[in-house]
């Protein structure tokens, strides 16, 4: 078993994604403590992969892998892990990493920590902090055994330390690509039209606490009075109360408005990924233990309807 750290890179439209720089930066810090190297693995053709601060960047440059293929990517990572026997394998806890990390754990028997917020070394061993129960609890775990898999929440570490100039080395695909069961068909683009919530200075964001489609109007009224636009958490969009274009978070859009006024949103890690950098975050929630209060600048434990109605009278 080596002391190296393998970072499985994420990319989109030919560019390395931020979560990869974040992980490489963190991996450098850990590798220094372990006395090992940081190896980045980039699967996909035509990705600009010469700007990581890894000790080595391996690139599987196959046209068939330009688009994410969960089966192929999983088998390739497994093969590379078998050959390199790293101490730690890092994934982003993203749509891609969610397909790969635990699968690798099941195949190799190596422990996997998901929702990772932090990793550190203590007496030569890894200690990992994971967000659990929608962020209401933090679990601090010590993985056993020679190899560990960590799936890291985007936005957990700074990107700067992961930026560098290591030239990628092409390697052939370690698996056959002609008998895959999963085939990429086409890319799906975000729905066009509607307002662009990423360019708005003020957002009134509603969550499941809004209760139903008929109550969206209240949020619209409040938004109008404030010169804001209504955004939402995922369940609101899944329920069809607002269009997909209004969704903030991991699978939605990332926003950084001057004001993010939240009505009935609990603050799950997936929502925070999309808005935690807003300049002023105000949260109204009936649950005083809602995780959002750990992130918001101002909060009130109150009924959103009563507060919104009262605000409308004053505006």
């Amino acid at each position, binding site marked *: 078993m080596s002391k190296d750290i393998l970072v499985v890179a994420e990319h989109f439209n030919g560019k390395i994604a931020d979560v990869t720089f974040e992980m490489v930066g963190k991996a450098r810090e850990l590798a220094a403590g372990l006395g090992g190297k940081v190896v980045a693995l980039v699967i996909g053709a035509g990705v600009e992969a010469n700007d990581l601060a890894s000790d080595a960047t391996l690139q599987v440059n196959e046209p068939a892998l330009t688009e994410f293929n969960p089966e192929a990517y999983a088998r390739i990572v497994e093969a590379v892990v078998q050959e390199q026997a790293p101490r730690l394998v890092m994934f982003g806890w993203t749509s891609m990493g969610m397909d790969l990390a635990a*699968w690798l754990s099941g195949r190799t028997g190596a422990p996997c920590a998901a929702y990772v917020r932090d990793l550190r070394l203590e007496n030569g061993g890894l200690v990992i902090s994971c967000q659990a*129960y929608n962020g209401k609890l933090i679990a601090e775990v010590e993985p056993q055994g020679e190899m560990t898999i960590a799936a890291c929440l985007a936005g957990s570490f700074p990107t700067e330390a992961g930026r560098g100039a290591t030239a990628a080395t092409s390697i052939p695909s370690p698996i056959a690509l002609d008998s895959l069961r999963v085939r990429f068909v086409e*890319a799906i683009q975000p729905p066009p039209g509607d307002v662009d919530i990423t360019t708005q200075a003020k957002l009134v964001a509603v969550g499941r606490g809004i209760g139903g489609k008929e109550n969206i109007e209240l949020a619209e009224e409040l938004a109008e009075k404030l010169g804001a636009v209504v955004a939402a958490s995922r369940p609101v969009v899944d329920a069809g109360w607002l269009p997909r274009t209004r969704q903030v978070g991991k699978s939605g859009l990332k926003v950084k408005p001057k004001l993010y006024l939240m009505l009935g949103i609990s603050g799950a890690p997936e929502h925070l990924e999309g808005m935690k950098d807003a300049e002023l975050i105000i949260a109204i929630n009936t*649950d005083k233990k809602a995780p959002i209060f750990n992130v918001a600048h101002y909060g009130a434990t109150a009924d959103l309807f009563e507060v919104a109605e009262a605000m409308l009278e004053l505006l």
Partner: protein
Amino acid sequence: MNIVVVLKHIPSVADELPVRGNQVDFDSVDFVLNEWDEQSLEQAALIKEALGGTVTAIGVDVIGELDNLLHLALAKGADRAVKIAADDAGADSHRQAKWLSEAIRPMAPDLVLVGVQASNDIDGQLGPLLAAYLDLPYIGVVSSIEVQDGTALMNKEFAGGFGARYSVRLPFVAGVQVAPKPPRYAPVSKIRQIAQTAKIEVLEPSGEADSGLVFRKVAPPVVSGHAEMIEGSPKEIAARLVALLKERGLA
């Protein structure tokens, strides 16, 4: 079509989540159906409606109250209900996935559906672990599945509204993020009626696996900052907020 839907019974995050030792105090929390399992159940029902076949609902009975969820699944279109009698409130995803894989393999499913994640999946998710143990491909964050001639056409979501369409040869395991339609409603009267007649198959846990994670500590997040809480009646809160926004030129 032989569809297996996995249900996960987990502590409700709407609760206080008290901690005892290095774990949630499972005795003093409510257990609920993982919210994404509602979506996978709906997706299974939609495929069955389109193609025919059977839907088997299965889960690990971690606190001895899984029957309620299985009755719900039967009311929403499942044909068969199976529970693995474990009585292990802290069974991690690895352990549950191993037991489920042993139970599901002999069923020779065409498709296994799980919720894309559960809030207690600290060691990864159940779905990919199950796929690894069953030696099947896994594809998660799925928002629609249509099956035709042994192949599924499905959509997977990425960030920012982007996604991709895949074609996948059966069988495989999918982690459902959202079904194409909101989950159907099952009237309480129907669930009650099913509860009286339903036959639930009981299996003993078989197989060994665990997460390999030793829990040092489980606690509410230690936060550097906490929101400045505005106290008072809703009217007072509103007045304070409006004043704050005006001060900052935001209203």
